[in-house]
């Protein structure tokens, strides 16, 4: 499984990346969370907000920085 955060490199994107890493390690998963600043990836998916969180290349979170609980819920629903 691949979890990736894609963003324009702004503060919100970095915070989402850190939060995702925390959640992944809370779940005890041994997954590498990827971080990309390649905006074209976002646009190619047809999206236009940043940051985006994808699980196996499917966007599950678009343009917001969720609370930790909300993020846990989203990740557990999609793995």
């Amino acid at each position: 499984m691949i979890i990736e955060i894609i963003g324009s490199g702004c503060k919100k994107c970095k915070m989402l990346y850190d939060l995702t890493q925390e959640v992944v390690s809370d779940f005890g998963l041994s997954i590498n969370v990827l971080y990309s600043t390649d905006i074209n990836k976002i646009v190619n998916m047809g999206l236009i907000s940043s940051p985006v969180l994808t699980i196996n290349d499917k966007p599950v979170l678009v343009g917001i920085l969720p609370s930790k609980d909300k993020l846990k819920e989203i990740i557990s629903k999609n793995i």
Partner: protein
Amino acid sequence: MNIFYPVQLLADWLTYSIFNIVPNTTLAGVINFFIYDVVKIFILLSVIIFIVSIIRSYLPPEKIRVILSQKNKYVGNIIASFLGIITPFCSCSAVPLFLGFVQAGVPLGTTFSFLVASPMINEVALVLLLGMFGWKIALIYIISGLIISILSGIIIGKMKLEKLVESFVYEKIISRSVELPLITRKERIIYAKDYTLDILKKVWPYILIGIGIGAWIHGYVPADFLAQYAGGDKWYAVPLAVLIGIPLYSNAAGVIPLVSALTEKGVAMGTTLAFMMSVTALSLPEFMILKKVMKTRLIFIFAGVVGFGIVVTGYLFNLILM
């Protein structure tokens, strides 16, 4: 009747009964003013941001793009500016938004109308204007903001500046429709609640500091003290206010209560409006980020056209509201 009368009662009770400050002193005035404004602004922020977030959950930028790519030029500029009011804008999204709009066939001018209106007419600024200046000034701000974004977009569209957009942008055309994660009504309400709390968490220190300094100025700076430096008859006040506003973007929440106090002490209203528009619409970090997709000249033209519109608005209201 003033719907905030109960807030005034609360402020009076806290000032005179709890803090035991002698009534009719400058200190009592300052403390009372501070409590009243803080409580009022936080009530307004909670209610209005919540409502705007609910509306917004139906209109994410991905949907707005579909709407805008189907409209002709002038109608597009107008709709883009109106949609900009309810859309949040974080400089994080400036680049994907620009790419996503242009590559889906939204005209350059329409895209710029949206890029101007979205940060300029935002709900936090509106609440603070409403709370500190009243509905008339808030309305003047919205209408002038809309006119500036519509006209800036039309002018930039007419100038045929597509060649100043980085060439890779036009190399690809993307599909306009996209499957977004579905949301239920319950999730919309949760989203709106979270978003409201999120904004409150982010802006409360600025608002407290802004209103705090504002309350101090309100009580201790002599009336009309600033008129000699920034009154309506000082020609340089408007452009200077616009220049000072450019690097202040992230502090819009603290800036508005502060300028409200400055206006009371003699800064002309048009100058104040121009300053607030500059704080919200012209943002240095956003310009830096936009360099990824457009040539520096286009950023200067964009800032120049919008800045000119703001300066004209400032002079205009200095004349009208004198």
